[in-house]
């Protein structure tokens, strides 16, 4: 499914629609430790986290992730939004907590299996 369709069906808030917006995405990961995500992140993967500071954008950019979803209603810091725009990384948000969001994304075909 295309990222923009996942955004619509999962009722995600769009902070920035980046270059992955029209791309197919079928892989997800959840983590708040940046070392874990930098080691495990795969190309075109959607990353769910509660971290909101600007360093998450560098991780997504370096690992070519499809985008970042801030769970539990978290809002990005201003620096994070600025970085996402500059790097053109898709930055999204959800009112749901990580577990609820994963449940919803699995229903849309976003898998945890690489």
């Amino acid at each position, binding site marked *: 499914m295309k990222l923009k369709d996942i955004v619509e069906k999962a009722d995600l808030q769009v902070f920035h629609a980046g270059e992955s917006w029209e791309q197919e995405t079928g892989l997800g990961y959840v983590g*708040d*430790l*940046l*070392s*874990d995500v*930098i*080691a495990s992140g795969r*190309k075109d993967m959607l990353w769910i*986290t509660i*971290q909101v*500071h*600007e*360093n*998450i*954008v*560098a*991780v997504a*950019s*370096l*690992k070519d992730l499809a985008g970042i979803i801030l769970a539990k209603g978290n809002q990005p810091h201003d*620096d994070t939004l600025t970085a996402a725009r500059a790097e053109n990384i898709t930055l999204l948000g959800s009112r749901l907590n990580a577990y609820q969001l994963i449940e919803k994304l699995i229903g849309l075909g976003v898998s945890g299996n690489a």
Partner: protein
Amino acid sequence: MPPGATSKGIVLSESVDARFRKLFSIEGGNFQAAGSVSKQIKMILKQLSIDNDLIWRAMIVAYEAEMNAVLYARSCEVTLSVSTHCVSLQFKDRGPGIPDIGLAMTEGYSTATREMRERGFGAGLGLPNMKKTADRFSIESVVGEGTTLQMELDIP
């Protein structure tokens, strides 16, 4: 290991035939710029037509080392060398140094502050991640002076 001791990993190959070499510098404590050196390295490796899987691994070691420099050091000089057979990264920082390298290399051990942990760093995964990911890894440290990391990734 006593304070101030150094620890060397396996012997690294000489990069005398480097076809590309570039220096970068990292400013300790500058979270806004964190990741920018890794990003430049990624762009260079792409321009040199390095294999995507190798770039993917290089980003793990580069970002971990860059974040360690931002988190703990005053400054850090980075040397990227690319030869016909490997990508080599050296991170030489001026900082507090590591008193016990064996302990620092233990997964889960960290001296990170609460603030660093709240930002998702300091889980004690950085150095072990680098060692696991690089084909060759060495670390030397002098307390009160700094730490040097040398990592090589073989080009298939």
